[in-house]
Structures are given as structure tokens and as C-alpha cells.
């Protein structure tokens, strides 16, 4: 049984870490971009961002004034049990979101879409989002909490493409998204670009968002042809001639991640998402024995999450 008080206190710590500490993989990616950037203004911007990450950690204040929309990705091992059950779990995550909004402090971004009602705590109807996954490995009773505070009203788009559009059509929509939202830096680039391909409209958006937010810089899709496409797209994005804030430069894309899902035979859905200069994510694994292990890699996309076939060996065996 995983203790509910430990879930809430860990969740509060994660809210704080996500807002303040730039993940190491993104930091290294940005440093690499800054090392080759030769646009005057773009270079200045990247240096200022690197200083900003340091200032945030020193002062324990959020990296960015727009602290995004907090959301939760929860993963449970196959045998994990949470004290109080899933309802208690969701209550703990909502409490942690509200407490940390006032504690860090974060900006209370969440309002009612029509009445603009603001509870000043980032909690409301459907907020924070809580999404779930399950995992056969490693064995044991554990729960992974990942919080992502994705910012940005810009940089994300969806389009129904068709098989006849081919890779050339995918490239066009990718470039269109970067150029359109990269102007004036609305996408807060350089960003981790996530691309969702296939699924249906909603799952395509989910895949793209998770590709951007739940994979680390340098990680490659296990399908070698998709991995090659990711590398090609990273380079293509950085060859646009645009850098940070839409100034002349060559740093648009810190990395590009592509996730796919099986789709209708006639379609090829595509979504593009940009995880910004303040790529806020923090992760912890909580075990039933009370251990808490913090990390920044959500390790979301496992072989199990990308499974292709009807059955899964271990789950089958456990059920027998």
C-alpha cells in the first residue's frame, strides 16, 4: 500500500522542482545550441536564458513568470495499491497543485473558459489533467508521478493528412508550424518539438504532446526509421534560419520526438507540439516501503506503452 500523505507531499515537491529547475537534458541541449548559435540577438537571448536558469535555482523562484498549466501523468505498477484508492489519489494531486500554486508561488493560470472565474490555485473543472498508464516492469508496488507544466498558447497545431501526402506532406506541416509560431518567438523556442502521427484526432494530439513533454533530449524512438526521421527533422528545423524569439539564427529545435499510433486506413493524422525554453517536468517514483526516488526522465514510453500485439507476456502469465 502506498501512503497517501507521501503522495501529496511528494507531489508538492515535484510542483516546486518542475517550476524552478530546468531538467538537465534540456539544459545540455540548450548549451549545445548556444555553442553553435552565431546570430547576434539569438545568441544574447540564449545566454540570458542560461543565466536565468541559474538565477531561478539560486533564488528558488520559478524560471518563467508564466508557469504553465500544471498536469499529472501517473503510472502504476501492475500490483500497486494506493491508500484510499484512486479517488484519494486524485484529491491528493489536486491539493498539491493548489498548495504549490500559492507556495512556490506559481501563476494561477487556470480560469473558466467563458466566465474567466479564477480560483487562484490552478484547480478547476478538468484542471489539473490527470492521465494514467500502467507498467508490468519493474515488479513491485510503486507509483510514478510526473508533473508537466506546459506553457504556451502557441506552437501547437493539428492537421488531418492522408497517406498520399507522404513524408513530403508531413515535412510541410512541420515546417509550417515552426515558421508560423516561431515568428516573434511565440513558440518560446528553441523547444523540444513533439510530433504525433496517427491515432485519431484526440489520440494524435495526446501522442504529440507526450512526445514533447515526456521524452528527454537525446532520446530516440526505437523504430530506427522513425529515429532517423527525428534526427532529420531536428536538423531541418534548425536550418530554417530562425532562432530564439524569431531572430535570425539556427536554434529552433533542441530535439524532435515522434510518436505514432495506429490510425484509420485512409488517414494520417499529424500534430505538432512545442515544449518551450522553460520545459517544466519533474518525476518521482514512490514505493510502498516509503522510498521516494526523484528524477527528470518520465520514462513514459516503454515497450509496454508502445506495444503492438494483442497480448503482453508477463501480464498474461500473472493472470494465469
Amino acid at each position: 500500500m502506498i501512503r497517501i500523505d507521501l503522495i501529496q507531499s511528494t507531489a508538492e515537491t515535484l510542483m516546486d522542482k518542475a517550476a524552478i529547475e530546468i531538467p538537465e537534458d534540456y539544459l545540455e541541449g540548450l548549451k549545445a545550441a548556444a555553442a553553435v548559435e552565431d546570430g547576434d540577438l539569438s545568441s544574447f537571448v540564449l545566454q540570458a536564458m542560461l543565466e536565468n536558469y541559474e538565477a531561478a535555482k539560486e533564488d528558488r523562484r520559478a524560471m518563467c513568470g508564466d508557469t504553465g498549466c500544471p498536469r499529472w501523468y501517473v503510472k502504476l505498477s501492475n500490483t500497486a495499491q494506493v491508500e484510499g484508492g484512486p479517488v484519494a489519489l486524485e484529491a491528493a494531486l489536486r491539493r498539491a497543485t493548489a498548495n504549490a500554486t500559492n507556495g512556490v508561488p506559481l501563476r494561477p493560470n487556470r480560469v473558466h473558459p467563458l466566465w474567466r472565474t479564477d480560483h487562484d490555485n490552478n484547480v478547476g473543472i478538468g484542471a489539473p489533467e490527470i492521465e494514467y498508464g500502467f507498467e508490468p516492469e519493474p515488479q513491485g508496488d510503486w507509483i510514478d508521478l510526473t508533473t508537466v507544466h506546459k506553457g504556451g498558447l502557441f506552437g501547437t497545431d493539428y492537421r488531418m493528412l492522408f497517406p498520399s501526402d507522404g513524408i513530403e506532406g508531413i515535412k510541410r506541416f512541420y515546417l509550417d508550424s515552426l515558421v508560423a509560431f516561431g515568428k516573434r518567438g511565440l513558440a518560446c523556442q528553441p523547444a523540444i518539438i513533439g510530433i504525433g502521427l496517427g491515432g485519431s484526432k484526440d489520440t494524435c494530439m495526446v501522442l504529440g504532446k507526450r512526445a514533447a513533454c515526456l521524452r528527454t533530449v537525446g532520446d530516440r524512438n526505437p523504430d530506427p526509421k522513425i529515429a532517423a526521421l527525428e534526427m532529420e527533422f531536428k536538423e531541418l528545423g534548425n536550418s530554417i534560419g530562425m532562432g530564439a524569439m524569431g531572430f535570425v539564427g539556427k536554434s529552433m529545435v533542441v530535439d524532435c520526438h515522434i510518436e505514432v499510433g495506429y490510425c484509420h486506413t485512409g488517414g494520417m493524422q499529424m500534430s505538432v507540439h512545442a515544449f518551450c525554453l522553460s520545459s517544466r517536468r519533474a518525476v518521482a517514483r514512490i514505493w510502498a516501503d516509503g522510498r521516494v526516488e526523484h528524477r527528470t526522465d518520465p520514462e513514459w514510453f516503454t515497450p509496454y506503452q508502445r506495444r503492438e500485439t494483442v497480448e503482453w507476456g508477463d501480464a498474461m502469465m500473472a493472470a494465469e
Partner: protein
Amino acid sequence: MTSPRKIRLSTTPTPEALAELQLGDIVYLDGLMYTAREGVYMRALEEKANIPMELPKESAANFHCSPAASINKDGSYAMGAVTATASFRFAKWIGEWFEKSGAKLIVGKGGMSHQTYAEHFVPNGAIYLSTVGYGTGALLGRGVENVEAVHWHEELGLAQAMWVLKCDNMGPFIVASDLQGNCLFERENAKIAKGLEKVYEGTRPAVLKRFGETDDRSDELIG
């Protein structure tokens, strides 16, 4: 590669100080600055509520921002990070706001269009400063010496309230328009547009078009 020029500027700047500024200069601000986004414009301009500050005497700097901050139970403020929000969305209010506030510095994210500069900024002798990044929220937060007041937070919520910030060497900001109405972002767009045809080589337009679609890459989406 050259480093941009760095300049300190008052939030009640003289016309001479503004005339000095060139596109791409880096500016650090001293003095009072107030935040104003959708809620403030709607309340002050559409609902005609009295602006609770003496403008522009106290401040001629309008910040399109809402900070990551909270109000403590004792009435004091916890100020974390500070960054701007995209300014183009406030274009419809900017003319009337200039009339009421006498603002000389509009500080925000992403600048505004050259039409907005020509129509509203140039006649009012105002310039646009963009935040850097975006966003250098922690660095800007360090530049806030004090929160002087938070107006309308009960009516508008913390994110939309009018925060009055005392700035001490607060920055960096980038000069994104000058007194002639030249636009830094559009200058950069034009340079980048020259290379786009080559980048798009080998790609193909989608078989199913969308309303309002353009293949003119020099087009912008803001209006």
C-alpha cells in the same frame, strides 16, 4: 558577432532618452511599472472604472504581464518570477489606453505590428520593449525591488490584476520598436523569409486544404 548595447532607462523616460534607443538595444528599467492585460483594459476602458494610479506621472510603463506571485494572509506579497504575455492580443485597446495613461513604454512579449506602431505608438512618442527568451522570469523577478500595490485583484483574480512593481535595474528587455515605428521582429522576419523557399524544397502542400490557408511565408498570423 557583436554584443548588443546595454542601456538603463527610467519608467518615466524623457523624449530624449527614448530617441536614443535603437532596435535591438538591451534595456534595464528603474522606477514604477504596472501590469495590464485583458482584465485591466476591459475594466478601465469598457467598464470605465477609474484607474487607481496617477498616470503617467507615477509610471509611463505598461507591462503586458502577470507574475507568478501570491498575496500572503498578512497582505504582503510573495513575488516569484515575472514574464510577459503576447502583446498582439491587446492591439484593440492600445489606442485608447495611450490616451488615458500617457504610456511611453509598452513592455510585453513578441511586439506588435508595424501598423499598430504607426497608428498608435509614433503619435504618442512611445516605444515597445520585449522581454527576452521567453522568458527570463527569474532574472526579471530579481529586478522587482518591491510590490507597491495590487489593484483589482478581487475583481479580476491574481493573474489579471494590476500589479504595481518597483523596478531596480530590471531586465533584460529588447528595444523592439523605435520612435519612427520601425519593427525589430518584422526586420528579422524579412531576413529569414529570403531563405525559406530553399528550406521548403521537396515538401508538398496537403491534399486537403484549409480555409484561409496561405503559402506566402512572409505572412504573419498576428493581427
